[in-house]
C-alpha cells in the first residue's frame, strides 16, 4: 500500500493487510501525534488497511 507522509512530503510503500496501529509502530510514530486517513476518511487504530489502500499519515502537532 502507498503511505503518504508530511514534513517533508514523501511517499513510501508497505505491504498489506496491516492494522492501522501496527503501521504507526512500523513507522515509529506516536498515535497521539498523527491521524491516519484512508482515501479521504479517518480510520481508527484497529482498522485493517489493505494492499490497494492509499493512506495519508497527517501530523497534528503544530505551534509556535
Amino acid at each position, binding site marked *: 500500500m502507498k503511505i503518504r507522509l*508530511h*514534513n517533508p512530503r514523501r511517499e513510501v510503500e508497505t505491504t498489506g493487510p496491516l492494522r492501522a496501529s501496527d503501521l504507526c509502530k512500523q513507522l515509529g510514530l*506516536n*498515535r*497521539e*501525534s498523527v*491521524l491516519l*486517513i484512508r482515501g*479521504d*476518511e*479517518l*480510520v*481508527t*487504530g*484497529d*482498522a485493517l488497511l489493505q494492499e490497494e489502500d492509499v493512506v495519508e499519515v*497527517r*501530523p*497534528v*502537532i*503544530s*505551534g*509556535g
Partner: protein
Amino acid sequence: MKCRRCEEQAVVEVRHAHAAYCPTCFVERCREQVSRAIGEHRMIRSGEKVLVAVSGGKDSLAVWDLLLDLGYPADGVYLGLGIGGYSDRSGDCARAFAERRGATLIEIDLASEVGFTIPQAANTRRMPCSACGLAKRHLLNKTALDHGYDVLVTGHNLDDEVAVLFGNTLQWNMPYLARQRPALPESSGFARRVKPLVRLTERETAAYCVIRRIDYIVEECPMASGNRHLLYKELLNTLEERDPGAKATFLNGFADRVAPLLDDLAAQERDSVGTCSRCGSPTTAEVCAFCRLRDQATRPPRRRKKRRRDRSVHAEESPVTGGESRRP
C-alpha cells in the same frame, strides 16, 4: 471499533476519554466541549461582537466553524506575516473558509501595517516564534479594539495550553503561570481574550477539520522548526501515549488547585500595567515590547552587521557568552 454513542462504525478514537466516535457523534461532541468551555469560563455573552484570530491552520478554522455552528456570528481576522509561500497558502485557506461560510474576514498585512515581516523580526535578538507571538498579540488586540469587538477568540487547544504550562512550570515563571487562563478578562487597553478549544486536543481539532472537509494548512511554519514548544508537545504526547489523560489531568489540576492561589499575583500584574509612551498600548515598561521589536526589525542593516561583527569578536574571546546571546 464502534461509536460510543450510536454504535455505528467509529472513525476517531479519543483515548483520554476511553471512547471512539462516528463522524456525526464526534462533531456533536466537539460542539458540546466548546459550549461547555464557553459556559464554564463565561467567554462570550449574548449579543457580543466576536472576532476570531485566523491563521489558516486547523485550530483557528475549527474554532471559527464551531462558533458559527453554535450560533455566534463571529468575524475573522487574518494577519499576513510575510513568510513567503507559507503565508500565501495559509491566507488562501483562511479566505476559502470565509467564502464557504459567507463570513467576514479582516486582513492585515504586517509589512504595510507596521513596516516589517516576521522573517525580518527574526533577525532581531528575539527568537522567531517569540517575535511572531509578540507581533500577533499586539496586532490582534489592536484590531479587536479598533473595530469595536467585545471578545477576541484564539484557537489555542488543550495541547497548546499544556505545553505552555509545562514550559512555565519548568522555569517556575510565576507571573506567566498567574496569567495562564482559558479566558483573560477585558481590561484597560485589552480586549477580552478567550480559548474555546481548551477542552479539545489538537488531534481532535485536526480530526474535526478532516470530517468537516475544512481545507487547512497542514505544513508546519518553516520558521517554527526546532522551537521548544514543539519539543514539549512531543514529550507530552510520549507521556500521553503511555498514560492517556495525563495532559488533561495536568492542565485541569493546575486550573483547579494552583491558579486560584495565583489570583493575587495576577491582580498585581494587571495593576502594574501602564501605557506605552510611543503607541499607547498597555505595557509595564516606558516603551512596549512591540515598539522595541519594530525598532530592531526596521533598523538599517548596516548597523546590525556591525553589531554582529562585535558579537563574533566577543564569541572568540568568550565562547560561553557568545553562545547564549540569542536566548530570549
